[in-house]
């Protein structure tokens, strides 16, 4: 029995040794190697218009990390759950100017700037924490791809659109570093830990 306890102690000590230090987030997406340099996929230039009719570009998120999702106001399926989880993230970080949320409407016909403004007010959100944007139809659908998200117009889908409820985390250098299923509260909890890891790694103290 004594021997057994001894073994157990050693094992426990060993397990403690292999405990990982602060985890670091990978850069997601397929990478290329050009002339010996690894090239990671990056988010391209964009320019959209937010709920206050102001232009939002990559420069809006300079020196910040930001989160991205795709939605539409009259979405009969997953959007409210994604928004509810987004609200949890927003509440936790809204006084932290090191990060922001960027939600793209994929219903460019109905979700006008005025409609986005009303939507923001009803959600109880605002800038600089949370930007709701609209813009050129093709630009929005094509950037969804860059964020590894699905946005497809489909008259047979509920509400007329197919889209993923993903929330994506982007670093200062336009790299995608993490994502979660925005409809799944437990996955969003894990995602919030990733946010803290990236903040510590990239930005440091606020």
């Amino acid at each position: 029995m004594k021997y057994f306890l001894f073994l157990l102690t050693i094992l426990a000590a060993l397990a403690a040794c292999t405990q990982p230090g602060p985890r670091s987030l990978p850069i997601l997406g397929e990478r290329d190697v050009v002339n010996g340099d690894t090239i990671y996929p990056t988010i391209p230039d964009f320019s959209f218009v937010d709920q206050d009719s102001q232009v939002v570009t990559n420069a809006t998120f300079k020196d910040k990390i930001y989160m991205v999702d795709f939605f539409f106001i009259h979405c009969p399926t997953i959007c409210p759950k994604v928004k509810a989880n987004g609200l949890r993230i927003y509440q936790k970080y809204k006084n932290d100017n090191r990060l922001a949320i960027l939600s793209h409407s994929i219903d460019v016909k109905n979700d006008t700037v005025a409609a986005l403004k009303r939507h923001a007010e009803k959600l109880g959100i605002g800038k600089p924490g949370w930007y709701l944007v609209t813009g050129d139809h093709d630009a929005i659908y094509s950037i969804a791809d860059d964020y590894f998200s699905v946005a497809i117009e489909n008259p047979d889908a509920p509400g007329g659109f197919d889209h993923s409820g993903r929330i994506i985390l982007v670093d200062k250098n336009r790299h995608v570093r993490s994502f979660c299923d925005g409809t799944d509260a437990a996955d969003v909890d894990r995602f919030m830990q990733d946010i803290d890891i990236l903040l510590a790694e990239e930005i440091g103290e606020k």
Partner: protein
Amino acid sequence: MPKTWFYNHEVTLSHPVIRANIFFNTFLLTAIIGLSACEPNTFQEGERLYKAQCANCHMDDGIGLSALIPPIAGSDYLPANRDILPCIIRYGLKDTIVVNGKTYAEIMPGVAKLTDVQITNLLNFINNSWGNQNGLYRLEEVQATLEECRLQVQRGER
């Protein structure tokens, strides 16, 4: 066969009488479980339907979302509008309503594919979950209401 036989440790489980006894007991248990499955718990079906059709918007715990989607948990709208709830589920709601003192002017799509029985189970679930205690619906009551709504829709009144 004396009953004590069963508890006699000297008799092994492979004894034919014991084997028969175990077999019979297992059979009985299976039959009981089988019978109870014939009468599904209607709250379970209501809960399943709620998760599939409503929880996306009203959330798993019925709390709604900000000023966009009204709560069902603790909603004073449910008891006050008991007689139109079946129609809301089938035909949706596009109105200005007040729930617990807050005004909502939004759109809820109806779920046309639910049967009268499913709507009854769903109503009984939402009216008696998360602390709600609004009583039960009978199928006949729900059917009568739905028939009235159908006629209203036909006449273009809804």
